[in-house]
């Protein structure tokens, strides 16, 4: 019954999304891709997959950046097609997904202008999913308050920004703080939105978002060692929706080095496993890759259930991971640096 109600509005799009998902590259494809000698080989193989002729109109020789752009373009077209066909509440849900790209774009532009780069050089680097009208005029702002008043107040990010207005000026440190505060507010809002939607959507999305929140908390902590960020400020950046909240976050707040972070993770079964195999030595996977792997696993799980919005989020994330994988392989092929070519993260 629930399913039939879901299908009135979301049935077509869910079917579409699952269809798209079937086009995600399989392990066998990756095995073929890593055998490629040149980027032309890569192109030829990708032609045999769902990507089809997406590189057919590119003149040789191919550059990795072209592949990257085209991969992203295809993903964005698919996502925007779904967004254009969506109705409430799915449309809001999909919008929420784009907010994270908006945050990244804003930070990218501010950092860029801080380093005196011309805006025309920065715009192509922005993610097209996160572009908004006022984006290109962002460099009029010199302080966070101005940023809010002049640029962001019209965007959906405005409510997330309220906590940042108090910051004095835009230097490197403050930008990082703004990014993380924005992201924290965004994650919490997204989490609350999914909880409100209820049902299977809440089940699957809260799991994924909780992991996202925890990952941010852990990474912020690890990256803050050796910087001038105080512990009090650090606590303010932790998103309070994950499994670490509240005890784990309190423990993280006190951590002084990597070992202590690891000790905190020990208490949580899934995170302990991630920390155990991680390392920077050759043959070991970095913590970052471990996190990606776990994220992929969660996103794949979202497809096990039906009648929920999680599949859209998961599809986007999986596809992004796939783009990262293909670009990684392409980069390794282009630079003839084959020793690390196997460091991609397989999805299926």
């Amino acid at each position: 019954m629930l399913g039939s109600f879901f299908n009135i509005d979301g049935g077509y799009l869910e079917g579409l999304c699952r269809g798209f998902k079937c086009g995600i590259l399989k392990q066998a494809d990756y095995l073929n891709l890593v055998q490629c000698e040149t980027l032309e080989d890569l192109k030829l193989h990708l032609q045999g997959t769902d990507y089809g002729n997406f590189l057919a109109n590119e003149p040789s020789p191919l550059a990795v950046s072209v592949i990257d752009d085209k991969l992203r373009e295809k993903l964005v077209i698919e996502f925007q097609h779904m967004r254009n066909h969506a109705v409430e509440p799915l449309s809001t849900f999909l919008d929420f997904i784009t907010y994270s790209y908006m945050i990244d774009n804003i930070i990218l532009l501010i950092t860029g202008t801080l380093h005196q780069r011309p805006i025309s050089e920065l715009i192509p680097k922005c993610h097209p999913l996160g572009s908004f009208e006022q984006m290109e005029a962002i460099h009029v702002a010199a302080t966070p308050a101005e940023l809010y008043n002049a640029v962001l107040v019209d965007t959906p990010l405005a409510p997330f920004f309220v906590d940042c207005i108090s910051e004095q000026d835009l230097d490197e440190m403050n930008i990082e703080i703004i990014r993380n505060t924005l992201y924290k507010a965004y994650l919490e809002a997204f989490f609350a939105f999914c909880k409100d939607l209820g049902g299977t959507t809440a089940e699957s999305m809260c799991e994924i978002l909780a992991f996202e929140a925890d990952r941010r908390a852990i990474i912020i902590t690890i990256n803050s060692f050796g910087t001038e960020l105080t512990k009090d400020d650090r606590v303010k950046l932790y998103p309070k929706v994950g499994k670490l909240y509240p005890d784990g976050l309190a423990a993280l707040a006190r951590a002084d080095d990597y070992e202590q972070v690891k000790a905190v993770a020990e208490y949580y079964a899934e995170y302990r496993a991630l920390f155990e195999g991680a390392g920077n030595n050759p043959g070991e996977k970095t913590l970052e890759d471990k996190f990606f792997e776990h994220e992929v696993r969660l996103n794949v799980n979202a497809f096990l259930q039906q009648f929920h919005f999680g599949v859209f989020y998961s599809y986007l994330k999986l596809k992004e991971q796939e783009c990262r994988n293909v670009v990684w392989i392409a980069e390794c092929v282009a630079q003839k640096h084959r020793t690390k070519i196997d460091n991609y993260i397989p999805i299926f």
Partner: protein
Amino acid sequence: MSLFRSEDMALCQLFLQSEAAYSCVSELGELGLLQFRDLNPDVNAFQRKFVNEVRRCDEMERKLRYLEKEIRKDGIPMLDTGENPEAPQPREMIDLEATFEKLENELREVNQNAEALKRNYLELTELKHILRKTQVFFDEQEGGSSATESMTRALIPDDSIARQAAGPVQLGFVAGVILRERIPPFERMLWRACRGNVFLRQAEIETPLEDPATSDQVHKSVFIIFFQGDQLKSRVKKICEGFRATLYPCPEAPSDRREMAMGVMTRIEDLNTVLNQTQDHRHRVLAAAAKNITNWFIKVRKIKAIYHTLNLFNLDVTQKCLIAECWVPTEDLEQIQLALRRGTERSGSSVPPILNRMDTLENPPTYNKTNKFTSGFQHLVDAYGVASYREANPAPYTIITFPFLFAVMFGDLGHGILMASFAAYLVIKERTLGAKKIQSDVWNIFFGGRYIILLMGLFSMYTGMMYNDVFSKSLNIFGSNWRNNYDESTLMNSKALQLDPNSTAYFKYPYPFGLDPIWQVAENKIIFLNSYKMKISIIFGVFHMLFGVLLSLWNHVYFRDRLAIMCEFIPQIIFMCFLFLYMVLLMFIKWVNYSADTIDVKAGPYCAPSILITFINMVLFKSSKNPDVCDDWMYAGQGFLQKLLVVIALLCVPVMLLAKPIMIMRARKQHQPVLNIFLSPKLKSLIII
């Protein structure tokens, strides 16, 4: 025999000299009679032997697509002579590549120049518009300032005197052009970022401008922003940059503006001549390319197809020859040998290719030879299911049955004429229409099925005449065989009158062809026609199905499948005959035995039984309740015979369902492989149709 069954196929091995392989495959490709098997399924697409050639073809295709896009942009018609050039020799590939390379480079250069010129042109036109529009703003400003002056003076006179002494406040301004749809956010942003301390005026440019990069038509607006001070100036400029507005210098003095406008006008004219020359050059290049482009496309695609096919081949150990495996219709072996010989001759190789027949246990592919007339029907049948190898092909029968059964339903002379003439137009014009290569799906359905539609139309005309329907009206060609035998007063006084066939109203012999036109005006037309057409349809349907079942017998005999004959065909035919053929029989009995012009009540219209009710009662084992004067049955022993028929027919159901699986199961248990069970008939398609 090939009309009724798919072609006899043989698996062949083909040994080709490396140097002759290309031209041989080219010749075979023109024939289109072989199906090659992939001999290296485990090899990646990019690790195959001729991958570089395929890639070169890809590159050529890309250039051609670019050319095609540019040609379309300029709206130059592409010449399509419908000729089919042969695949060029591999050495000619280099020439083609060079030609395309040259064309592409030339075109890109021209495009670049044109774009730069267009950009220049756009800037000048924008400037022209700015100068024209801002004139109005400046005029207003001057007029407006005096108005505010008078107002301020009236309110606070002291201040105004002081300000007058200091002279009017020096206002800075920038003028520029922006996309029209970006005006509202632009204005809002200006207001917010400058806290309302700027003054924006804008005016729309009426004529759309051409975007040089995409050559789209875009609407733009002129704006002018007044502000005070340098800080605001830099901020305003930043916002303009952010909204991709283009700023232009605009002199403040009216005379300077006029002078500048004059200069701009002359420069625009100069630019126009240069631009026209560039366009002419571009047009010439494209027009030359447009003549050949379809030919080139075919050539490149043929080369690519040949190399794709060569990639399926195996290389033998000595690297001197290529080995291919292919399915070949045995009838055409000779033609293929000929083509191979031609290919070898063309390549100048001395060693002839070898074509070996191989024995195989594999099930060969189904290949039905078609021509332009039968292909539509074959597609229709294949849509329901492709017959297995050597199975009876229902397509030849479909050529008649499908249009006929359609016409039974459609049956109207007028509509049939329309349909037939539309299809006839398609058939007569098929050469010119086919050459147009129209891409529309709907059109292709009609065009592909033109012969089907033609036959459907012709048959509909026939059935329409039988039904005596022309656009749902009747034709009275021979004169009705009924007449009115009532006098005028009766006619005037009664609402409905009956014509009794057993009186002078009927001439005692039927209308010579089809339905009597008198039925058109009859009140009970629908009642009569419905039961009449329904009976006819049932008769046709039952015979059609019987025919289908008989075809399956033919199939079983061909494959020597005794099990299927015993457990499928016989129960099927019994079931069909005992229930439905019997019903058809009843109809004929009714038509023969009962009539209106008889004095015997029992054989008259009053006692004529309803076949539908009789049949329902038969299956339900009920006896019919007839009025006392009539007989209960249509013939003696009907009740017993009907019960017997139903019981036997019902007994056939479990036989049809279970007998064959059980027999196969038993055979398997005894470890006797039953091979021919896999060749199940696919003749259901005929039955469905």
